[in-house]
């Protein structure tokens, strides 16, 4: 009885899936999916290497500091970094005094009640504060940015596929719309107020090119501030903001792997010893 009912139920599902298969196939033949501009012209991130890549990856603090400078002078005008605190900058090589100074001189202050009157006001940032957002709320962010909210950057390199390369590619990927695209898809012309970028999923990005000229940021360590270097440095910095414990993780990883390899050899030896005269 179980087998008869089961067989009928199984046949019902199989037939329904099979009819679906025929209908999908017929549909696909009669109306093949039209190619889209996104599908044809979207590009995967460029191949770019960072010191933090791979199982031996470590942070290059000088690069992170340069990246922080790019964030401070360029990105932070619109983007928040709400999961990172000023004190965290000590991890990338700033001294306590430097962190204090960076916090105190930060252009945007932290919202806090006035200690005298209790009215809402702002105060200077302290090392324990997280980076204050450039806009008071989402509505303000929208109003100032052509109705597009600049996303928080704290986790950006983990929130996109191949994140660091994506950030680098996006920052260096602005270009004019290819003539080929307009010829194939005349309706796909980038709307006014948006910017063509093949590394962005739908090709048209609200963010204006943020890095426009070499030397936009003055690096103190003598590195040439080319657009390419600035993009790479800020991408490296955002790898750190997204995964500040990366170095500790890699170090603990090698210790664990070493321990477990020894553990495996010992347990394998114990296993072979216990079973030595038992055929199995």
């Amino acid at each position, binding site marked *: 009885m179980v087998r008869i009912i089961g067989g009928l139920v*199984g046949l019902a599902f199989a037939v329904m899936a099979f009819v679906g298969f025929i209908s999908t196939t017929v549909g696909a033949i009669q109306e093949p999916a039209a190619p889209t501009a996104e599908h044809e012209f979207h590009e995967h991130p460029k191949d770019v290497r960072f010191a933090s890549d791979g199982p031996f990856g470590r942070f290059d603090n000088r690069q992170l500091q340069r990246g922080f400078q790019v964030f401070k002078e360029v990105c932070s005008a619109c983007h928040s970094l709400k999961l990172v605190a000023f004190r965290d900058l000590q991890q990338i090589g700033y001294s306590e005094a430097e962190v204090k100074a960076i916090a105190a001189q930060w252009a945007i202050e932290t919202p806090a009640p006035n200690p005298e009157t209790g009215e809402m006001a702002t105060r200077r940032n302290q090392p324990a504060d997280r980076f204050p957002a450039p806009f008071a709320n989402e509505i303000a962010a929208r109003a100032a940015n052509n109705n597009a909210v600049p996303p928080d950057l704290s986790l950006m390199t983990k929130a996109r596929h191949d994140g660091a390369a994506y950030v680098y590619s996006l920052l260096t990927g602005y270009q004019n719309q290819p003539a080929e695209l307009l010829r194939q898809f005349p309706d796909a012309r980038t709307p006014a107020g948006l910017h063509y970028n093949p590394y962005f999923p739908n090709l048209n990005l609200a963010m204006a090119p943020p890095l426009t000229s070499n030397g936009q940021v003055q690096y103190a360590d003598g590195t040439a501030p080319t657009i390419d270097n600035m993009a790479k440095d800020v991408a490296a910095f955002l790898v750190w903001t997204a995964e500040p414990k990366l170095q500790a993780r890699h170090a603990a990883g090698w210790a664990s792997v070493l321990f477990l390899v020894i553990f495996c050899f010992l347990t394998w030896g114990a296993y072979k010893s216990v079973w030595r005269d038992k055929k199995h």
Partner: protein
Amino acid sequence: MSFPWAKHYEPKAPLMKWLDDRLPLPRFVYNAVGAGYPVPRNLNYFWNFGVLAGAALAMQIVTGIVLAMHFSTDANTAFTSVESIMRDVNAGWFLRYAHANGASMFLAVVYIHIGRGLYYGSYKPPREMVWLLGVVIFLLMMATAFMGYVLPWGQMSFWGAQVITGFFSAIPLVGETIRVWLLGGYAPDAAALNRFFSLHYLLPFVILGVVILHIWALHIPGSNNPTGVEVKDEQDTVPFHPYYTAKDGFGLGVFLLIFATIIFFAPNLLGHPDNYIQANPLSTPAHIVPEWYFLPFYAILKSFTIDFIMPAKLWGVLAMFGSILLLFFLPWLDTSPVRSANYRPVYRWFLVALLVDVIILGYVGGAEPIARNIIMGQIASAYYFLHFLVILPIVSAMERPRPLPNSITEAVLAKRGGTAPTKTAMSGGAIAPAE
């Protein structure tokens, strides 16, 4: 219950004698996973995965309890509390990566464990109850994993919860009411997050309880083995300890090595980037996909595209739940008296086809819903149901199995060659149990 030649627990130390007279817990452990449990001598490495699943469950409970100490069950702060675990809690990044990847490892190990059961016929009499309890554990694991994935309150958490609870709205008449009741609102929000957290904390202990029943039921007939031939006498078995504790120790080492490699060097490999974006009810991700371990079932859900008597969505939901629930009937669908597929020349090829089928379903579940992928999913879904509900009963009635060995020992010696049974019969005397 055990074989007559099972060793008996004999406490020697006065304290252990005293304890044994009052609370025979050491005796219980001795008989469950100690020298008091005789196990077939010919188990291969696939038999390590039960112990590995138990280890994975234990690790999930330990890391989960510590994470719960730092997690905030509130829709406004859940996401940032997870990030503060990653940044500010001592070794918090390790706990969270171990827990998130631990779920994947647990499911991976359990899938291999289930596959082992399918191939070697471990669901057949007299072990039906072991199998049924195993399917219950699997269902509980799926529920726990789903609710756990919602807790970090990222985009995939939120939209996954939206899609999965949406299944219930496919039920005619009362579906939408049930969905709202389950979520505690019209969309996932504070109420849903709180109840998912509560249940996510509860269910692992329910799983633990059913695991104990699973092992209890296993100990009545004893373990199956790669030949599928029942144990006949003492030389077919070895005591679980030290033989299989030693082998499981090595298996555990390899498991932990793979687990550690993922945690420390590729912790986000199995996750989705969108879950690092805080949940936003106003922004739907381009592709909502579940975790990898649900993808085959998700593909089945999406493969039903035709309205016939019932809406296509309801067909899909019924098929998806049916694809798991049919496992409960497996012991009665397969009537072949031979357990191990090693001796079933026809069925084993269908099992290989099923493995390929499930891998295709897994691919389709995560792939873009373009015509080619949908078509693949529909054929694979049809085969999935045909395999269990049509092919399996017919094949098991028609197939002529290959001759079985007379005993486990005979099979072992035929494979390894050499000495007569009498010589290997009781070599255990040379190795004193480590206890």
